[in-house]
C-alpha cells in the first residue's frame, strides 16, 4: 500500500512520464526538422493526427459513446456503466479493507489514518469517474509528432531556423516536472513566436499559397494542443486534490464512528458515506468561480485544437473532388434561407387566400 506521500510521488512521476513522452516527441520533431525525418510521405501521418481529437474528447467530455436509439444499445450501455460502477465500488473496497482493519485494531491515529489509504487506487477510481486518461496526453503528443515528422519532411528547408529557435525553449521542460504546468504553454508559445518572428515573416508575404497556411495552421494547432494539455493537467490536479481531501474526510468520519463505539460500520455504509462526502466536497468545488473559469478555459482550449484541425484538414482536402465542411456550411445556409423564405411565402399565400374567401 502506498502512503499519501507516495501518491504525490506517483503524481509527479506521471507528470514526468508525460514530459518524457513529450521530450521524446520533441526530439523526433527536431530530427525531422533538421532533415532526418521521412521525406515525401505526403499525407500518411494525417490519419494518426486525427486521433488527437478522440484523445482529448475522451479526456474532457467522455462523450464519444455510441448512443443509438435501439434498445439493445441502451442495455449494452447500461451494462457497461454498471460494470464500470461496480469496478469503482470494488476499488473502494480494496481501499476500505486495510483501513477498517487498522481502525478496528486501534493502530490508527488521527494523523496516521491518511497514510493508510491507497491514493493510487483512489486516483484510478477518480480517473474512471471523470474520464481522465493519462495515456491520452502522451498519445496526443505522439500523434502530433508523427504528423510533424511527415509534414516537415517535405518542408524542412523552411523549418530549420524555427527548429533552432525552438531548441532554446527546451530548457523550460524541467520546470514542468517541478510542478509548473504553465511552462508547457510557455514552451509552445515560445516556439510559435520564434517561428513567427523568423521564418514566419517570409510566409507573411502575400501569395505564398496554401503551404504557408498549412505550416502556420499546423504550428498553431500544436500551440493549441499545448495550451490544452497544460490546462488539462491543471484541471486534473484540481480534481485529484479535491478527491484526496474528500477521502480524508470520509476516513476521518468512519474512524470517528467506530471509535465512538458505534456499531460496526459495514462496507455499504462506508460506500454511502463516501458518495455523500464526495458529492458534497466536489459540489463545493464546482460552485466556485475558479472552477467555472477553469472548466470554461479547458473547453475553449479543446475547441481551439479541433477548430484548427478542421481548417488544416480543409486545406489538405481542397484539391480533391469532395465537398468541404465550409462548403457544406454555405450550402446548409442557403437551404435554410430558402426554406425560410418559402415558408414565409406559403404562409402569406394562405392568408391572402383566406382574405379572398371572406
Amino acid at each position, binding site marked *: 500500500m502506498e502512503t499519501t506521500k507516495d501518491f504525490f510521488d506517483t503524481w509527479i512521476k506521471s507528470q514526468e512520464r508525460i514530459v518524457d513522452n513529450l521530450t521524446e516527441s520533441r526530439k523526433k520533431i527536431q530530427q525531422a526538422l533538421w532533415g532526418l525525418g521521412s521525406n515525401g510521405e505526403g499525407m500518411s501521418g494525417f490519419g494518426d493526427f486525427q486521433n488527437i481529437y478522440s484523445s482529448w474528447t475522451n479526456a474532457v467530455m467522455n462523450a464519444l459513446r455510441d448512443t443509438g436509439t435501439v434498445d439493445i444499445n441502451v*442495455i449494452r450501455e*447500461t451494462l457497461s456503466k454498471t460494470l464500470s460502477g461496480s469496478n469503482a*465500488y470494488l476499488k473502494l473496497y480494496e481501499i476500505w479493507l486495510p483501513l477498517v482493519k487498522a481502525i478496528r485494531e486501534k493502530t490508527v491515529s488521527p494523523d496516521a489514518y491518511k497514510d493508510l489509504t491507497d491514493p493510487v487506487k483512489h486516483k484510478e477510481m477518480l480517473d474512471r469517474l471523470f474520464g481522465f486518461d493519462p495515456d491520452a496526453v502522451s498519445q496526443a503528443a505522439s500523434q502530433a509528432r508523427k504528423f510533424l515528422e511527415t509534414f516537415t519532411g517535405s518542408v524542412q528547408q523552411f523549418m530549420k531556423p524555427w527548429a533552432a529557435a525552438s531548441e532554446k525553449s527546451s530548457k523550460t521542460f524541467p520546470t514542468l516536472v517541478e510542478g509548473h504546468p504553465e511552462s508547457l504553454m510557455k514552451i509552445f508559445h515560445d516556439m510559435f513566436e520564434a517561428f513567427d518572428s523568423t521564418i514566419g515573416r517570409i510566409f507573411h508575404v502575400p501569395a505564398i499559397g496554401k503551404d504557408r497556411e498549412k505550416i502556420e495552421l499546423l504550428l498553431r494547432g500544436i500551440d493549441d494542443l499545448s495550451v490544452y494539455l497544460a490546462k488539462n493537467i491543471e484541471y486534473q490536479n484540481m480534481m485529484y486534490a479535491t478527491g484526496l481531501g474528500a477521502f480524508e474526510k470520509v476516513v476521518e468520519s468512519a474512524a470517528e464512528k467506530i471509535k465512538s463505539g458505534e456499531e460496526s460500520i459495514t462496507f455499504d455504509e462506508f460506500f454511502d458515506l463516501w458518495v455523500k462526502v464526495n458529492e458534497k466536497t466536489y459540489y463545493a468545488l464546482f*460552485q466556485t468561480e475558479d472552477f*467555472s473559469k477553469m472548466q470554461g478555459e479547458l473547453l475553449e482550449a479543446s*475547441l481551439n485544437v479541433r477548430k484548427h484541425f478542421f481548417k488544416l484538414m480543409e486545406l489538405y482536402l481542397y484539391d480533391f473532388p469532395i465537398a468541404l465542411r465550409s462548403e457544406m456550411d454555405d450550402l446548409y445556409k442557403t437551404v435554410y434561407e430558402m426554406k425560410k423564405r418559402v415558408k414565409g411565402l406559403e404562409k402569406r399565400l394562405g392568408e391572402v387566400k383566406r382574405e379572398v374567401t371572406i
Partner: protein
Amino acid sequence: MKNYLKELSEVNTKLIKGTETLVGIDEIDVGTAPKELVYKEDKLTLYHYTQEGKVTCNVPVLIVYALVNRQYMLDLQPDRSIVRNLLQHGLDLYIIDWGYPTKADMYLTLDDYIDGYLNNCVDVIREKTGNDKITLMGICQGGTFCGIYSALYPEKVKNLVTLVAPFDFSTNDGLLFSWAKNMNVNALVDTYRVIPGDFLNAGFLMLMPFTLNIGKYVDMLDVTQEKESLLNFLRMEKWIFDSPGQAGECLRQFIRDCYQGNKLVKGELKVGERLVDLKNITMPLLNIYASADHLVPPAATRPLNNLVGSTDKSLYEFKGGHIGVFVGSKSQKELAPAISKWLHERGNEEPVKKNP
C-alpha cells in the same frame, strides 16, 4: 473480516445475476400512450393523444418539452405517466416532438423554434379544434419557449402553465447556471455547428458525478432480479442518454442572451425582430417549480410571477427535484390532479370559435 468478504461476495453475485437479467431484456418501451400524428414540419412532429374517455376541459393543451432530451419523459411508463394522468382527468392533449437536429439544422434560431415551429403547431391546433386560444404547457426550456411565445402572441394563448422553467438566469444557485456563464459559446457553436447531446450529458453527469456514475449503478444491483423494477431503471437510462444534438444558432442565442445576458428578465431579448416583453403575458399563469431542483433552481423559476402582466397567477411548489416533477409518485398523486383542476377552472363553457 469474514462479514466484509461476504458483503463483497454478495455484490458480485448480484452483478452476475443482474447481467443475466439485463441481457434477457430486448425491449424498453417508453411513450406508449396512444397518439396520432397531426402535423409534420422538417424534423418536428406534432402528436394528438387519443382520449379514450370524455374530454371535460374543452381548451386543448399543447405540451412543449425542452430541446434537450426527449418529450417521452412525460409518458415514461404507464404507471408513471403525467400524460396518461392528465388524459384520465379529461384533458385534450397535444405534444411536440422536436426531433433530432442534424447539421442541416445548424442555422435554426430561437426565432425559428418559437415564431416558426411553435407558432405553426399552435395554429394547427387552433384550426383543428376551432378554438381561438389554446393552453400552453411548457416544460423546462420548453416552458421558457412558451413564456416567450405567450408574450409575443397573447391573443392565441388561453392559459400558460410552466413546469420547472427558467426565466431569471442571474442566479448561480444551479451549477449549470454558474458554468454557462464562463463558457465560450461562440467557440462551441462555431466548432461543432450542432452541439452533440453527449456534450450536454457530460455536463449533467458532472452535477453529481459519484451518484450518477457509480452510486446509481451499484444501487441498481439491488433491483436486478425484479424485472419490472429493472425495466423502470432502464427506461430512465434510455431517456437520460437519448439526447438530441442542439442546433448551434439557437443554443448560441439561448446561452448568450439568457444564461449570460439574462435578457429575458431585462426585457432585452429579441426573437426575430421583436423584443420580448413578459408583461405582455396577461393570460392566467400557473408556474410550477421544484423546491429541490438542482438543474433549474427555484431562484430561476419563481420570479416569473412578478414579471408577467397576468392578474390570475399561481405559484405551485412541488416538493422534490427536477425529474420528480414528471415521474415521482407525488407527481402522479398531487401535481397532475392540481394542474387538471387549475385548467378545468379556467376552461371554456364551450369551444371558442375562431373569429370568422
